[in-house]
């Protein structure tokens, strides 16, 4: 049997979701954003909710996510995606609303909106892509940057406190990696909080199942934020090739940000 015999419409088992537009992603080769977009689109398609889904894109690399999803979309100001999602969901409670944000957007400039959206228990789905760095602006420190990690604004590595040497040792410097997901999980307004990854097929499948649950909860519920963090890569600003970046993610990001459900059905998962 030749390849040509196999590649026929009736034998198709996997293809890109029809809910993605024909526009090629502008993301760097190997960037997790593309994979995450793909599985979100698959979930919306599988749930058949494309006619009532409204997305909110952030400021950051995924600012133009609206170009890729074939659903209605609004582009939010930096950090304000969940305020936007709140605005839409409150006036259209029967629509399905999701926000899509990176670590700078959600956990630095938008921390206030993040906390309060979660605390109000808005019935929305929040997707949080954490790659520990500012991608679009060129690789500066993010709130989730690992200690010791080199970025454009921590060229000698992120140091929570100043190192010994100039007599300033021990005074505050760059602070610590912010575990915003654990933080919001402890708010009564969150219903489902989970941390996933998309670096290999098994984790993509798990992440997709989590995103699906986060959408289903919204559809079936009346209140409570459904929050999916996805630990992702930034090979361009991590300055490594895509395959190496995914290895680095497993070895360095995951020990700091362990995967798994943190809160399910409003209850913290005991580890």
């Amino acid at each position, binding site marked *: 049997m030749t390849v040509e015999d196999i590649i026929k419409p009736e034998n198709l088992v996997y293809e890109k979701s029809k809910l993605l537009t024909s526009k090629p992603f502008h993301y760097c080769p190997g960037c997790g954003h593309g994979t995450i977009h793909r599985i979100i689109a698959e979930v919306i398609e599988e749930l058949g909710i494309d006619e009532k889904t409204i997305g909110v894109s952030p400021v950051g690399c995924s600012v133009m996510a*609206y170009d890729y999803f074939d659903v209605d979309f609004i582009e939010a100001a930096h950090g*304000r995606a969940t305020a*936007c999602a709140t605005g*839409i969901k409150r006036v259209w409670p029967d629509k399905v609303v999701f926000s899509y944000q990176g670590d700078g957007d959600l956990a630095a400039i938008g921390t*206030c909106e993040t906390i309060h959206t979660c605390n109000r228990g808005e019935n929305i789905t929040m997707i949080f892509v954490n790659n520990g760095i500012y991608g679009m602006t060129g690789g500066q420190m993010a709130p989730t940057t690992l200690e010791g990690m080199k970025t454009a604004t921590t060229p000698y590595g992120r140091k929570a406190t100043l190192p010994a040497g100039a007599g300033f040792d021990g005074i505050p410097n760059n602070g610590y990696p912010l575990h915003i997901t654990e933080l919001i999980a402890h708010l009564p307004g969150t219903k489902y909080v989970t941390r996933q990854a998309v670096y290999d097929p098994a984790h993509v499948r798990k992440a997709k199942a989590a995103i699906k649950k986060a959408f289903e909860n919204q559809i079936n519920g009346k209140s409570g934020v459904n929050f999916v963090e996805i630990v992702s890569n930034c090979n361009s600003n991590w300055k490594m090739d895509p395959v190496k970046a995914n290895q680095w993610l497993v070895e360095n990001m995951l020990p700091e940000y362990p995967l798994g459900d943190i809160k399910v059905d409003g209850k913290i998962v005991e580890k």
Partner: protein
Amino acid sequence: MGELKLMKGNEALAESAIRYGCDAYFGYPITPQSEVIEYLSEQNPYERTGMVVLQAESELAAINMVYAAGAAGKRVMTSSSSPGVCLKQEGIAYIAGAEVPCVYADVVRGGPGLGTIQPSQADYFQAVKGGGNGDYKNIVLAPASVQEMADFVALGFDLAFKYRMAVCILSDGAIGQMMEKVVLPEQKPRMTEEEIKAKYPWALTGRKRGTQHRIITSLDLDSNKMEEHNRHLQAKYKMVEENEVRYEEINCEDADYVFVAYGSSARIAQKSVQLGREQGLKLGLLRPITLFPYPTKAIENLINHGVKGFLSVELSCGQMIEDVKLACNGRVKAEHFGRVGGIIHTPEEVLEAMKKQIIGE
């Protein structure tokens, strides 16, 4: 005929919003406009009409809720006072860029910074000349009475949706806090989903399969498209300037000298006109109701009909005077008089200023 009531300006604004069929109010408390959200909360509008009232975590969050809910085709509003409106400028610029209709009220207090909680008109520049980033305008309505606080909600929403832009109700602490009788409009129904979909095809309501998905954004990295978008916005503002100028003239028919004043200053200047006329001075008052678009032509007409000078009376160090001077274009004298810091000028000192600065002893 509507219902006659005695109300504060802030309350009239809030009640009028419910009766207009406003879908949502997103706000944050700040003196001197907290009565708006307090009144709305007390009225339980969710039960009265289904209107959403949400106390946000900040003015920033509130305006971005307005931005998105307005983009979703709903009639939404917010209100604040000067320092709070500073925070809202981010969202207002996005609203302008993305062409989202909404109404926001600014019950102005003194500045800069935390300033005072007393009335002021020192945010004219911020409201009329931009405030946020980029080349944009908002329609600015200046109520001078509690009645107009109520009336401008409906006018504001009508204009906001007609032009897909933000409408600012530029009030001040005096108009917001004072009690007057007001005729309230009849209760109107809120728009249904079908009506919104039919009337506002741009609104984010969930795209129908087989149709183009909608994107509300202020971003375009294509320079040609962004220039085209800016030209489109300017053409729209030009249309607003041609069609929506509103003002009131009091005793201007035979006036030699005219006060130009809006909001609470106009109420005082009206008294100054009376006092002047009792002394044999032919004074008039031009009260701009829209600050953008500005009644430039009305000033030009007054000059054509023999007005020899204008005094811009403002609770500021001189902001609207720039527009008065532009309208005068050097043909006649135009000067500013104003008190600040929360002090409200008296009719007598306003008349004295007219005599001293414009008429000459």
